[in-house]
């Protein structure tokens, strides 16, 4: 029963997507505004997690949606519209990141070196001391390499499955699983260290 219900929802959503795309391609501009409204949160969260700066993220989101509009004719409904839009947003954010080659290279090295820690610098730890647990988690997410931030956002926030994350990023399922595991473990280890330090201070 539940399966039937989910299937109906999925079909309904796909029909809505198809109708939306058809109307845009026939020249209905308001429908594109509707599409942007429908997917702006999805795009913003992907871009913001990768870029990390509000103002730059807004520009990248805008650019991503312009590309969606220009390439809409090429969308063939082989995947969900949300997956296709997320792919464009991810690539656009990555292109922006490539302009900051140093950061990109640093992220690559961090991912290659499985034993890296979230804090090697003292200032970050001092900053963390002043935050509440919720804020600490978000602060730590911001410190992760973009690959980890991307999989965490796509899996936990946007609720894409492994196959969809593969479609978006091009990383094989095994890599996605590995990144997810390592990212969560890094966050947990950093929080644990913080909690233990706090306990010792309290005593």
């Amino acid at each position: 029963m539940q399966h039937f219900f989910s299937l109906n929802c999925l079909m309904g959503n796909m029909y809505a997507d198809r109708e939306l795309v058809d109307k845009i391609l026939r020249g209905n501009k308001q429908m594109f505004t509707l599409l942007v409204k429908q997917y702006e949160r999805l795009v913003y969260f992907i871009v913001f997690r990768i870029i990390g700066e509000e103002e730059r993220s807004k520009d990248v989101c805008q650019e991503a949606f312009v590309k969606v509009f220009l390439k809409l004719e090429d969308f063939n409904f082989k995947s969900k519209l949300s997956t296709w839009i997320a792919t464009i947003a991810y690539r656009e954010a990555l292109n922006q990141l490539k302009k900051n080659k140093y950061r990109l290279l640093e992220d690559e090295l961090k991912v290659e070196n499985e034993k890296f820690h979230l804090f090697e610098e003292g200032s970050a730890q001092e900053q963390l001391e002043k935050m509440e647990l919720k804020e600490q988690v978000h602060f730590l997410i911001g410190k992760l390499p973009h690959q980890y931030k991307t999989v965490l956002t796509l899996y936990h926030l946007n609720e894409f499955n492994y196959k969809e994350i593969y479609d978006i990023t091009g990383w094989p399922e095994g890599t996605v699983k590995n990144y997810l595991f390592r990212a969560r473990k890094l966050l947990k280890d950093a929080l644990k260290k913080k909690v233990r330090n706090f306990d010792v201070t309290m005593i």
Partner: protein
Amino acid sequence: MKRDNNIDRKIQNILFEKRNNVFDSKYQDSEDSELYQIIGNELSEEPQFSLDSNFAVDVTKKAIRRKKAGFALKVLLTYAAIISILILVGGTAFYFLAKDTFKDLLRLAADYNLQIIFSVLLVLAIQLIDKILVQKQSNVNVID
């Protein structure tokens, strides 16, 4: 270290992959499990959303402008290609049919080169102004 990873993997599978529904109490009560639950909750919570309320309308305007500009460029390039081919073919035919007249025309063009360049630039400027005016007009009615 490997054992640690195995425990972490087990907890993550139970909490995030919805696998192994029989929750082993030794993992459930652990500090790691609690921390993972906090992390999981925060990861699925939306960060602050800061796009303006008119973001969608602005993006639509920008996208339409970009599409029009792309289309205009395509048309311009097509015209340029057609005109170039016509000049080339016509010029070659003219050269073989009336060599002397062709040479006279070339000499005339060389003598009045400044005037010719000025005329071409004037036509292009008029075209450009016309495009800008048309674009401004269409921006006013872009969301019709």
